[in-house]
């Protein structure tokens, strides 16, 4: 298939502007990264509803909570490492315990942050965000889905964490007119022998893997599990029942992220052979994103070998 590339953060910036025109309650904040997170687009259009909090992520999240307590719909952005890690306690107490309407939308998630190295590669953010009660946690598969996510978040009250990428990534949705619902996984490709459950940029890698595997006679179902929390348990259980084997794929540590969440559901409901593709228990390093994906085991090749190993255990 012809591959179109687009950056999820660009889609985010544009969607904020679109929504900001319609809804005057939308307020956007950033912590000195607005050019990178693309909230600068909103800032330019609506300077009175944009607050740059400087390099102070903790202050940003609690301030966002105060704005939300007065009825604002607040989008707060920074890099994934800082939004999830630096401000974790503020997300927990000011934003989630209070169930306030703050949307923490972060960019530069995962190892493809690249050259900035380990300090800036968030490989643990999904784990620590999904552990917090009341939080919705979403990793869109591409720029098309990002638009759906942001539009839906404005309609749905409550705290959430959305993880976007730095890079332009392949569009997996040729048609943007699909049934997107928070908390409902999407079957991207049908298949009977095994299901790959993926999120973010790994959805595309999973589709590539399934195409290669089908040439080898293995029928692979691919699920885009964009919402890590609340997790679509029903779909996971159905896939386990129907294909009897599961591989997860995520640009995140195998500890605590999508793979762990799926394993929890399987272990308690429908144990089947499974394997997690993701960053092993280690920090990343500086490098070109593609080289890092290769080195840290996050390519379609890695998914293919995981699939083959799991099928042997069926």
């Amino acid at each position: 298939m012809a591959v179109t590339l687009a950056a999820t953060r660009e889609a985010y910036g544009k969607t904020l502007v679109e929504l900001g025109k319609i809804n005057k309650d939308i307020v956007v904040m950033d912590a000195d990264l607005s050019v990178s997170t693309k909230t600068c687009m909103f800032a330019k259009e609506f300077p009175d509803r944009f607050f740059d909090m400087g390099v102070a992520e903790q202050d940003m999240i609690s301030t966002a909570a105060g704005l939300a307590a007065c009825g604002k719909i607040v989008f707060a952005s920074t890099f994934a490492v800082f939004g999830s890690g630096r401000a974790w306690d503020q997300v927990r107490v000011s934003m989630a315990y209070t169930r306030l309407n703050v949307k923490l939308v972060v960019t530069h998630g995962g190892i493809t942050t690249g050259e900035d190295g380990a300090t800036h590669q968030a490989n643990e953010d999904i784990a620590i965000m999904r552990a917090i009660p009341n939080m919705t946690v979403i990793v869109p598969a591409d720029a098309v889905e990002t638009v759906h996510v942001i539009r839906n978040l404005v309609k749905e009250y409550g705290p959430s964490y959305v993880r976007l990428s730095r890079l332009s990534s392949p569009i997996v949705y040729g048609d943007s007119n699909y049934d997107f619902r928070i908390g409902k996984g999407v079957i991207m490709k049908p298949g009977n022998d095994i299901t790959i459950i993926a999120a973010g940029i790994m959805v595309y890698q999973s589709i590539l893997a399934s195409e290669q595997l089908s040439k080898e006679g293995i029928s692979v179902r691919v699920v885009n599990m964009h919402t890590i929390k609340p997790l679509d348990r029903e779909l996971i259980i159905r896939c386990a029942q129907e294909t009897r084997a599961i591989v997860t794929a995520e640009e995140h540590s195998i500890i605590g992220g999508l793979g762990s969440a799926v394993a929890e559901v399987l272990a308690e409901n429908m144990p089947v052979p499974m394997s997690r593709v993701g960053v092993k228990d280690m920090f990343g390093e500086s490098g070109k994103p593609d080289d890092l994906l290769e080195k840290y085991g996050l390519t379609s090749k890695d998914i293919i070998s995981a699939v083959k190993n799991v099928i042997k255990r069926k």
Partner: protein
Amino acid sequence: MITSEKIKELENKAKVIRRHIIEMISRCQSGHPGGSLSSADILTVLYFHKMKHDPKNPKWDERDRFVLSKGHAAPVLYATLAEAGYFPKSYLKTLRQIGSSLQGHVDMISLPGIEMSTGSLGQGFSAANGMALACRMDGKNNHIYVVIGDGESQEGQIWEAAMTAGHYKLDNLTVILDHNKYQIDGRVEEIKGIQPIADKWRAFRFNVIDGVNGHDIKSIIKALDDASKAKGKPTIIIAETIKGKGVSFMENNPLDFHGKAPTKEEVIKALEELI
């Protein structure tokens, strides 16, 4: 002009609030009496004289808002809200009990009148800034008050929030520092000193009203009135207070009563002093 009758009335109200604090904490044998007692007069003046609010309509859009950033002083806020009529005084008996709306640290979801959940220090101040920004955007003619502690002033977030309030010139915000000079581990100046505190706030672009006697109703009122008049800057009132104020043996041993409940005998003695 405030009448001497009104002053007397407020002084009595503060005494009633202090009695609630002692009774609540002794009933559940857990909580923070020292820092609750030290801010009792400040909250009394705010809720029974200064603030525009309506206990019958806690979500009134035009209300002034109060955030207790030092969330461990929850008993003083609960006692004040109950006295103001936000909820029945009988609730006070349930402090820190399982299933109660009166959580160990204040929870905005479980109880009317709580504007922000606090307990992790520093966060309430930032949230108050957010409220001040929102109210200013909406053109509201109201004011945001936030009480912070001096131990809390060691938190980095206090200074991030101070920078925000100063930068955004939040003159609809008043911070009140309950300067009782003690934290759990000892005297603030011995643990990690915060002096010169007034200079710090000036450097952070605040209008500073310092040397205010935080237990003198008249002085508190004057400071709050001056704060309302300040334009183009947020104000901080540095209220000199005494940890455990109103109960002699707590005042004399503030370290024993930061986070410890009084014994039965101590409660009787304390309540005798608060008549």
